[in-house]
C-alpha cells in the first residue's frame, strides 16, 4: 500500500514534467533551445483557470490553456525562426513576460496578486490520491511519452525533425523546409508544455503566482539528462518526481534537508553535461538558428 501510494504520488508529480519534457524534446531536436518551457507551462496554467472559471469547465480550461501555450510558442517561433533572434534571450524574455502578464491579468480578472478563486477542475479532491486517477490529463501525460517517441522515431515528420536539428543545410538541400519544421515542433512543444501547466492548475483547483516554480527547467533538465530522447527523458521525469515524492514523505523525518532533494535534477544535469558518465551530446544545430535558413 505504501509502495502503491508512493508510485501514484510519483506519477502525479511527474505528469507536468512529462508533458513539458516531451515538448522540450521536440523543440530541441528541431534545433531550438527549449528555455521557454517554464513560460509555456505557466501560461497554460493561467489559461486553464480562466477557461474553467469562465464557464468552460475542465475541458474549456484545457482548450484555453493549450491556446495560450501555442500562442506563446508562436511568439517564440516568430522571434527565433522568422527574425533569427538569439534563442536564449528570447526564451528568458518569454518566461519573464508570462510571469508579468499572468500577474497583471490575475489582478485584472480576479483582483488578487497571489491566486485565483477555486475552479472545479476534474472533480473534487479529498478522496485521497485515487481521485487523480479520474483526471484524463494524467493518462494523457503518461501517453505523451510513447506518442512523442513514436512521432520522433517512426514518422516522416520525426525523421525530418531529427535531420533539421542535426544538419539543416543537408535537409534544406533535399527540399525540406527547415523553418516550417522548426515552427511546427515549437508549436507542439508549446501545446504540450501548456498541458503540463493545465494539469497543475486543475489539480490544485486554482492558479497561483509563479505556480510552476521552476518545473519547466526541471523538464529541460530531464530532456538533457535523457539525452534528447523522449523515452529516456520520460524516465528522467519519473526519477526526478520520485525524488520529490520521497522528500515529501520524509518531510516529517527530515533525514535529508528538503533543499538537497530539490537540487537532485539540477545536479544530475550538470553531471551529465560535464561528462562524468558519458557526455550528453546535444543536436548539432541546437541554438544556431542565426546561421541557418538564409
Amino acid at each position: 500500500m505504501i509502495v502503491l501510494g508512493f508510485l501514484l504520488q510519483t506519477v502525479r508529480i511527474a505528469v507536468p514534467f512529462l508533458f513539458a519534457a516531451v515538448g522540450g524534446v521536440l523543440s530541441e531536436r528541431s534545433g531550438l533551445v527549449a528555455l521557454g518551457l517554464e513560460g509555456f507551462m505557466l501560461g497554460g496554467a493561467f489559461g486553464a483557470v480562466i477557461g474553467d472559471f469562465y464557464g468552460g469547465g475542465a475541458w474549456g480550461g484545457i482548450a484555453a490553456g493549450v491556446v495560450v501555450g501555442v500562442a506563446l510558442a508562436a511568439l517564440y517561433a516568430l522571434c527565433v525562426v522568422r527574425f533569427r533572434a538569439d534563442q536564449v534571450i528570447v526564451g528568458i524574455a518569454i518566461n519573464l513576460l508570462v510571469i508579468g502578464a499572468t500577474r497583471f491579468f490575475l489582478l485584472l480578472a480576479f483582483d488578487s496578486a497571489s491566486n485565483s478563486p477555486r475552479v472545479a477542475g476534474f472533480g473534487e479532491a479529498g478522496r485521497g490520491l485515487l481521485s487523480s486517477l479520474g483526471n484524463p490529463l494524467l493518462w494523457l501525460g503518461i501517453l505523451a511519452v510513447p506518442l512523442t517517441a513514436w512521432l520522433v522515431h517512426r514518422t516522416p515528420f520525426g525523421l525530418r525533425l531529427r535531420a533539421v536539428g542535426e544538419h539543416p543545410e543537408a535537409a534544406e538541400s533535399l527540399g525540406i523546409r527547415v523553418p516550417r519544421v522548426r515552427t511546427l515542433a515549437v508549436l507542439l512543444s508549446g501545446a504540450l508544455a501548456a498541458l503540463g501547466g493545465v494539469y497543475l492548475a486543475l489539480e490544485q483547483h486554482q492558479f497561483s503566482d509563479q505556480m510552476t516554480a521552476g518545473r519547466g527547467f526541471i523538464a529541460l533538465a530531464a530532456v538533457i539528462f535523457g539525452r534528447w530522447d523522449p523515452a529516456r527523458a520520460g524516465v528522467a521525469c519519473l526519477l526526478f518526481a520520485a525524488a520529490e515524492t520521497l522528500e515529501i514523505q520524509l518531510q516529517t523525518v527530515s533525514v535529508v534537508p528538503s533543499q538537497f532533494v530539490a537540487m537532485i535534477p539540477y545536479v544530475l544535469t550538470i553531471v551529465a553535461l560535464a561528462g562524468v558518465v558519458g557526455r550528453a551530446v546535444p543536436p548539432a544545430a541546437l541554438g544556431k538558428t542565426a546561421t541557418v535558413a538564409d
Partner: protein
Amino acid sequence: MSRATGVRRASLLAPRTRALLEEALVPPLVAILLALVIGDLLILAVGQPPGQVYRLLLAGTWGNAYGLGQVLFKATTLVFTGLAVAVGLRAGLFNIGAESQLAAGGFLAALVGLALPAGTPGLIAIPLATLAAALGGAAAGAVPGALKARVGAHEVIVTIMLNFIVLALLNYIVAAHLHVPETLHTPEIHAGGVARLADLIPAFHGSAANLAILVAIGVAALVGWYLFRTRAGYDLRAVGLQPAAAEYGGVDVGRVWLRAFLISGALAGLGGVNFVLGYKRYYEEGFAGGAGFLGIAVALVGRNHPLGVVLAALFFATLSQGGLAIHAVVPKQMVEVLQAVVILAVAVTVPEVRRLLRGSRGRTDA
C-alpha cells in the same frame, strides 16, 4: 598631424561613426518605442488614460527625491548584474547565473560582516565584506567557467541549473543555521556599513539609496578600462568575437573563458553589497529578486558597453520603481510585461538592424 590628413580622417570618420551608432542605438530605441505602445494597450485595458499614467510614473520616480533615491538604489544592483552579463557576452559567454551569483555575493558579504566584531569601523569592514561579495560571486561563476573551459559544457544550461542549486544551498544554510526565528534573514550586521545617500543629502530620506552606487559607477568605469584598454580585455574580446583568431593570436581560449566567468561572477556578487551592506544590513532569502535575470536585459539594452549598462540600469530601475508609483491606478505588474517586451524587441531588432546595415555595406563593397 597635418591638416590634410585631418580633413580626410574627418570625412571618413563621420559615416563610420554614424553606422556604428545606428547599430548600437537603433535596437534599444525601437524596443522602448514598442514597449510604450504595449504599455498604452495595457493601460487602456485597465481603463486609464495612458498619458496620465506615464506622467504619474515619471513623477513618482524622477519627480521627487525619495522616488529618485529608490531608482538609484535599484539601478545600483542592476549595474552590477548588467556588467556581469555584459563581460560574459564580450567573451562570447552567456551568463544566466547572475541571479545566484548575486545571492552568493550578498551571502558571503553578510557572513563576513557577521563575523567581524560589532563596531568594526567601516573603513575595515566594508572592504572586507565587499571583497567577500566578489569572492562569493566568483566562486559561483567558477563552476560554469571551469566546465566550459575543460569539457565545453554549455554555460547556459550549467548556469541555469546552478541558479537553482546555489539558491537552494543558501536557503538551506540560512534556514538551518543562520536565520532569525520567524524570518528568512540572518541577524543584523553590527560592523560598519555603507552610508546611506540620505546621510549626505537629507532629501533622500527614507530611500534605500546608498553609497554603493559610487562603487557601481567606479566598477563600470573599471570594466570599461579593462575591456578596451588592457591586453587582457583585448584577448577577452577577441575570444568573444572569433575564438579561432584569438587562438591564432596566441590566446588560451579556455583560460579566457574561465577568467571571464570569474570576473562576471565577481561583478554580480558585488551587487550584494548594495542590499546587504547598504540597505538592510542582513542577508535575506530571495533578496536578489530577479535582478540577476534583469541584468540580461540591462546588458542587452546597454549593448554590452559599461556606459550603456549604466543607462540601461537606470531605465529598468525607473520602470520597476515606476510600477510602484502607478500601482494605485494600474497594476504594477504592467512594468514586468514591459521589461520583457523590451528584451524581446531588442533581441529581434539587433540581428535585423545588423543585417540591414551590413547588407547595404556589403553591396557597396562588391
